[in-house]
């Protein structure tokens, strides 16, 4: 089933929580809604569920306008951030509740509840009350309750945020597998970019109620459209340097008080220098920086601290006043205060207009 937002805006009083959202989820797609806290993710989810009505615009499932359809008639399963289990019912009764409302037979209910409970491995907890469960167990009960209806769309609001690290990594895979097995639409809300990148087919990234971009994870990572996306996606985060663009003797340079780098010829194809402003932000990911011997077209930096990450090392350096992060091979060794040269992988640099914050990358044809 396709889910389509057409000019959807949601206001609370004067406050715009979701601002003119236009997006289309494909049938059977796993979509992540990613953004910082308060950017309107939950509001968007609740509009799909029918709990909130859009202030304006249309929400469609396939070609049916859903604005006025009640939540109970939408065939949706939802896990709330707070789990929202019914405290006065046992785990079994919680999971059975949607089926009871559908007036299913007792045997059928029992069969389905057992199936759903076993899928999330809580078969042994069916007689307990939610108050007697740990956060992770409650989480899985709420998943089972959403699953048991065999909904067409599953909505998950920060489902993993309260789990410990190991369980979270396991559940990530479990949920993804589940979605692929069932072939249903899944919308996952998260503020954790790793979760979004690892689980979703496509990511809708939001900020301040506005959709920033909607694309596959690789594309968001490789070609962020603006500074916000560049900053939000990637861990450790991208390094940013404020620079000025100058042209000398037919060559382009970026420079500030402490650095001056020549941009290679090929960058003219990637970036549109002719129409952009001169004040730019250069972005480069930690893995696209290397520590070298060469002094040619490199940055001069001082080691601040080295953090071993296991597989490799995260080197923090200082250039001028500001700190930057570099991924170095595990054998790299240096002490605080050592002077090093850093070269950039110019094919992987990003340039953003400082005022508009948009990338000055040319649109590919």
């Amino acid at each position, binding site marked *: 089933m396709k889910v389509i937002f057409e000019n959807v805006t949601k206001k*609370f009083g004067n406050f715009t929580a979701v601002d003119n959202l236009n997006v289309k989820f494909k049938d059977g797609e796993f979509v992540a809604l990613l953004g910082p806290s308060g950017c309107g993710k939950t509001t968007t989810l*609740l509009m799909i*569920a*029918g*709990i909130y009505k859009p202030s304006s615009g249309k929400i469609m499932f396939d070609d049916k306008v859903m604005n006025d359809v*009640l*939540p*109970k008639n*939408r065939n*949706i*399963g*939802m896990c*709330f*951030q*707070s*789990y*929202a*289990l*019914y*405290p*006065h019912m046992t785990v079994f009764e919680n999971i059975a*509740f*949607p089926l009871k*409302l*559908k007036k299913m037979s007792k045997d059928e209910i029992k069969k389905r509840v057992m199936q759903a409970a076993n899928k999330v491995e809580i078969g042994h907890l069916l007689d307990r009350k939610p108050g007697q469960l740990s956060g992770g167990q409650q989480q899985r009960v709420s998943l089972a*309750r959403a699953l048991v*209806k065999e909904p067409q769309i599953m909505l998950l609001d920060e489902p993993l945020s309260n789990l410990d690290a190991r369980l979270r990594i396991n559940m990530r895979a479990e949920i993804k597998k589940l979605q692929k097995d069932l072939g249903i639409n899944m919308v996952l809300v998260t503020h954790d970019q790793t979760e979004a990148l690892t689980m979703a087919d496509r990511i809708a990234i939001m900020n301040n109620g506005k959709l920033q971009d909607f694309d596959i994870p690789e594309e968001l990572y490789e070609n962020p459209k603006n500074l916000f996306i560049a900053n939000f996606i990637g861990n450790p985060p991208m390094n940013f340097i404020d620079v000025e663009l100058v042209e000398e003797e037919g060559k382009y340079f970026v420079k500030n008080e402490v650095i001056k780098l020549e941009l290679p010829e090929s960058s003219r194809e990637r970036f549109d220098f002719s129409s952009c402003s001169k004040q730019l932000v250069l972005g480069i990911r930690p893995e696209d920086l290397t520590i070298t011997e060469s002094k040619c077209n490199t940055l001069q930096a001082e080691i601040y601290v080295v953090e071993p990450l296991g597989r490799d090392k995260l080197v923090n350096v200082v250039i001028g006043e500001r700190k930057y992060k570099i991924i170095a091979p595990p054998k790299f060794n240096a002490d605080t205060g050592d002077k090093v040269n850093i070269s950039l992988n110019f094919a992987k640099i990003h340039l953003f207009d400082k005022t508009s914050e948009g990338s000055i990358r040319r649109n590919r044809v």
Partner: protein
Amino acid sequence: MGLIQKDRLETIIPRVMVYVVLVIVSLPLFIAYGWLFLNSLSDGAFGGIIPNKFTLQNWRFLWSEVRIGTTAFQSIWPITWNTFVLAAGITVIEILIAALSGFALSRMKFAGKDLIMKLTIFLHAFPGVALLIALYIVLQKLNLLDKLLGVILVKVALELPMATWMMKGFFDGIPWDIEWASYIDGCNRLQTWWKIIIPQLKPGIAAVAIFAFMSGWSEFIYAFTFIYSPENYTLAIYLKNLIGDFKMLDYGLLCAAGLFYMIPTILFFIFSQKSLMKVSFGGVKGPN
């Protein structure tokens, strides 16, 4: 003196002080009730401190007709039943309405909601006694004068604002997520109210019910004004009539009847302390 002993002393002293204060505060009450109890079992003590001979005579109203001077009082049991009907009627109607109106005020968005909220508080602040004459006329017109139902309706009307506010406070305490989850699971509003909200509201309902029952049980002024046939009397009126003739006042009998009147109240308090503790007003304001 060892350090440990000193520490122990420091934790014990405040506790002892708390008990001392509590005992001082509650002693007069204890003495009063104790005196009442002893007097109800003693013969001929005229408000004396030390009871006289033991007797059950004062409790004779339980099994026989009571006469004071020339007045004969009818059996107390139908009157007790009337009092119970009055209190229970008030409780049931009040709970039913307050549970629905509290839900609406807490959860739904509609025009004039704020106005209604303010008006209910205003109504509550309004002294009910000032309405006595107006209510008398209204009841007369409705043909509800001298009927328990009339008193029940008046009491419910006057207490409903408070009960609604209390209920709203309890509804406010239930997270929206749980309600939303039930809508998504397939409930309509009424089903959500009945299957999800009300079960979580039991302590709140109990508290409101206790207050309603108590105030119904001890209701005097409306019952006394609106009811005049002896077969519709309640215990409060019965007690009032016992005192009616000061020259003939039988204190032993009055003590016993007063105690009898208090028994349900005391039992209620003993069994419902926990629920009463949970009463709170206002509470968190949810979205919408």
